[in-house]
C-alpha cells in the first residue's frame, strides 16, 4: 500500500496534472486533424518530454495517445476521413449516422465506448499484464499469419456489397502493399525507377485519397449544392449512450476483451482489433443488414476494442520491452531515456513508477470524456457549412495532411491517385475498407507467410501444427466455409421442396 500511496503522490501534483491537461488538448487537436495520427502526436511530444521527470513525461504520452485515437473518429464521422486505420473499420456507419443528423450520437458512442474500452484495458494491464504478455510471446510467424488472414477475411465479410467485390478491393490493397523494396528478397517491385516508390505506398496518403478525396470528387460531381450534412441530433453525446450501453452490454464487453487481448500481441495493434471486433459484432448481431448503413452497434464494439488495444499494447511494452504497436515503440525509447528500463525488473526496482503510469491511464481515459465533449461540440459547427464551401477546404486539408507524412509532394500524388481509384471503386460498388486493410496488413502477411513457408520447408501442414495456430486457422477456414455451406443448403432446400 505505501507503494500505491507513493504512486498517487507522484501523479497528483499540480505540475503533472497540468501536463496531463495540456497533452489531452494537444492529442485531441492532432488526432482531429485529418492526416495526423496518434503516432505523430507521440513523436511530436518526445522532444518536449526530454525536459520532464519520468512520470509527467509518460503521462504526457499516455494522455495524448488516448485522446488522439478517439479524436481520429471526429474527421471520420464528420468528413469520412478516418484519422487512423482503426477508425476506418466503422467510418461508414459513423459517417452515415452523421449524414442522417445523428452526428452527436455517433461521436458520443465513439467517445464513451472508447473510454470504457480504455479503462477495461487498463484494469487488465494492472491485473494481468505478466500472464498475458507470456501468452503473447508464444506467438510465432504461424500464429501471426493466421491472425492477419483472419483480419483480412473479416474486412471482406463485414464490408457492404457483394463478397467478390470486397475481394477485388482486398486485391487492390494487397497489390499496392507489394510496391517497394521492403520484401523478403529486398528487390524493388513495381517502382518503375521511382526512388520515392522504393519506400512503398504510405498508407496515410492512400487512406486520405481513398476515403476523403473520393468523397470530395463525389460531392463535386453531384453538384455540391446541398449542406454537407443534415442538421439535427443536438442531443446524444452522453444521453443516448446509457441506452446504447444497456442495449449492447455484451458487445461492449466483447469489444473491450478482444481489443485488450489483440493489443497485447506484439505488432498487432488497434487496427486489427477494431476490424476483428467490427466483424464479430456483425456476425453475432441480430441486425447484421443494418451494418454499414449508420448502425451504432458496430461503433460500440469496435470503439471499445481499439482503445482497449491501446492499453493492451502497453502490456508487452512494460513487461518485456517489446512494443505492441508503433506508439509503444516510441514510448520504449522514452522509457530508456528516463532510466526506466522496461522489463520484468521494472516491477521490482521501481514499482511506484509503474503504478503511477497505471493511474495516469485511468486519468487519461476519464479526462477523455469532458475533453471529447468539448471537441465534438466545437467540431459540430463544421456541419452547418455548405458542401460547396466545405469540400474545397477539405481538399486542402487532404493535400496538407498527405504532405505532412513525409514532407514531400509525393504523398499528394499518391493521395490523388488513390482518390481517383477510390472514386471509381465506389462507382462500381466496390467497398474501400478491405483495400485499406490489405495495404496496412499486406507487409505483415508477406513477412509471416514467407518466414513460415521457409520454416516449414514448404509444408502447409505446419500452419496447423501449433495449437494456437491451428485454432486460429480453423476459425479462419470456418469464416470462409460457413457462408458457402449455408448458400448450398439454401439452394438445396427449394429443390427439395419442389421435389416434394
Amino acid at each position, binding site marked *: 500500500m505505501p507503494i500505491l500511496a507513493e504512486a498517487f503522490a507522484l501523479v497528483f501534483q499540480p505540475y503533472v496534472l497540468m501536463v496531463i491537461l495540456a497533452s489531452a488538448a494537444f492529442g485531441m487537436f492532432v488526432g482531429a486533424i485529418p492526416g*495526423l495520427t496518434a503516432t505523430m502526436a507521440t513523436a511530436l511530444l518526445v522532444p518536449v518530454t526530454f525536459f520532464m521527470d519520468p512520470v509527467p513525461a509518460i503521462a504526457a504520452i499516455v494522455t495524448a495517445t488516448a485522446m488522439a485515437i478517439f479524436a481520429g473518429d471526429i474527421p471520420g464521422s464528420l468528413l469520412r476521413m478516418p484519422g487512423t486505420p482503426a477508425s476506418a473499420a466503422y467510418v461508414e456507419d459513423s459517417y452515415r449516422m452523421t449524414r442522417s443528423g445523428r452526428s452527436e450520437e455517433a461521436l458520443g458512442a465513439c467517445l464513451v465506448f472508447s473510454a470504457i474500452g480504455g479503462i477495461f484495458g487498463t484494469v487488465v494491464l494492472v491485473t494481468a499484464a505478466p500472464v498475458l504478455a507470456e501468452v503473447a510471446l508464444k506467438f510465432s510467424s504461424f500464429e501471426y499469419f493466421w491472425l492477419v488472414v483472419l483480419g483480412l477475411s473479416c474486412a471482406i465479410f463485414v464490408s457492404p456489397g457483394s463478397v467478390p467485390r470486397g475481394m477485388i478491393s482486398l486485391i487492390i490493397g494487397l497489390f499496392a502493399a507489394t510496391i517497394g523494396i521492403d*520484401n523478403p528478397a529486398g528487390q524493388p517491385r513495381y517502382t518503375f525507377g521511382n526512388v520515392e516508390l522504393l519506400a512503398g505506398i504510405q498508407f496515410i496518403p492512400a487512406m486520405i485519397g481513398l476515403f476523403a478525396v473520393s468523397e470530395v470528387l463525389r460531392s*463535386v460531381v453531384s453538384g*455540391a449544392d446541398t449542406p454537407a450534412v443534415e442538421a439535427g441530433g443536438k442531443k446524444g453525446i452522453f444521453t443516448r449512450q446509457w441506452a446504447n450501453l444497456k442495449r449492447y452490454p455484451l458487445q461492449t464487453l466483447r469489444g473491450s476483451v478482444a481489443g485488450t487481448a489483440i493489443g497485447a500481441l506484439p505488432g498487432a495493434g488497434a487496427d486489427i482489433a477494431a476490424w476483428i471486433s467490427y466483424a464479430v459484432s456483425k456476425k453475432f448481431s441480430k441486425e447484421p443488414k443494418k451494418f454499414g448503413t449508420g448502425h451504432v452497434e458496430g461503433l460500440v464494439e469496435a470503439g471499445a476494442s481499439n482503445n482497449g488495444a491501446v492499453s493492451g499494447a502497453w502490456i508487452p511494452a512494460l513487461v518485456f520491452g517489446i512494443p505492441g504497436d508503433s506508439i509503444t515503440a516510441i514510448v520504449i525509447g522514452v522509457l530508456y531515456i528516463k532510466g526506466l528500463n522496461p522489463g520484468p525488473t521494472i516491477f521490482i526496482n521501481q514499482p511506484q513508477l509503474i503504478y503511477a503510469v497505471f493511474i495516469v491511464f485511468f486519468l487519461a481515459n476519464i479526462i477523455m470524456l469532458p475533453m471529447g465533449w468539448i471537441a465534438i461540440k466545437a467540431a459540430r459547427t463544421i456541419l452547418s457549412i*455548405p458542401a460547396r464551401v466545405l469540400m474545397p477546404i477539405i481538399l486542402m486539408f487532404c493535400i*496538407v495532411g498527405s504532405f505532412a507524412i513525409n514532407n514531400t509532394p509525393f504523398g*499528394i500524388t499518391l493521395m490523388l491517385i488513390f482518390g481517383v481509384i477510390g472514386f471509381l471503386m465506389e462507382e462500381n*460498388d466496390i467497398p474501400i475498407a478491405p483495400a485499406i486493410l490489405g495495404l496496412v496488413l499486406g507487409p505483415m502477411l508477406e513477412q509471416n507467410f514467407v518466414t513460415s513457408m521457409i520454416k516449414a520447408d514448404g509444408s502447409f501442414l505446419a500452419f496447423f501444427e501449433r495449437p494456437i495456430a491451428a485454432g486460429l486457422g480453423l476459425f479462419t477456414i470456418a469464416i470462409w466455409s460457413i457462408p458457402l455451406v449455408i448458400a448450398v443448403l439454401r439452394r438445396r432446400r427449394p429443390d427439395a421442396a419442389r421435389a416434394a
Partner: protein
Amino acid sequence: MKFNDLLLGLLVLVAGVAIYVSALGFTDIPGQAYGAGTMPRAIALFAVCLGLSMIGRAVVAGARMPRLELAPWVRAPRPVVSALVAIALVVFYIAAAPAIGFVPASLVVMAVLMLTLRTRPVTAIAVSIAACVVIQQAFGRLLLVPLPRSEFLGFLW
C-alpha cells in the same frame, strides 16, 4: 461508369495474369524457393480464381445487367468539368507550390474550386484566405510541417 460482373471479372482476370507474369522476373532469397515474387504470385492466383469465378457466375446468371452503365453525371458536362477541375487543381498545387509557396498555391486551389462549385465570388475569396491562413498557422507554425514558403509572405512563418 459502372461495370457488370462479367466485365469486372474479365478485368480482374487480366490483372491477375499481368501480375503473375510480371512477378516471374522477381528473385528468390538465395537458397530458398521463396522471395520477392512469392506474394505477387499468390495475389495473382487469388485474382485469377476470383476473375474466373465472377465470369462463371455472370455467364450462368445470363449477365442481364448492361456491361457498362453510365452514371447520370457522366452524361452532363458540368459535373465532369468540375471533377476534372478538382483533379487539375491538385496537380497544379503539386507543380506550383514549391515555386510560388503554400499560401498562393492553396489560395488558388480553394478559391477556384469554390467558384467552380458556384460559390459567390466574395464568399469564395474571403473563406479561401481565412482557411489558407488557419491551415498555414496550424500546420506550418504550430506543428512545424515544412510547407513551401513564399519569399514575400515570410512573416507568416
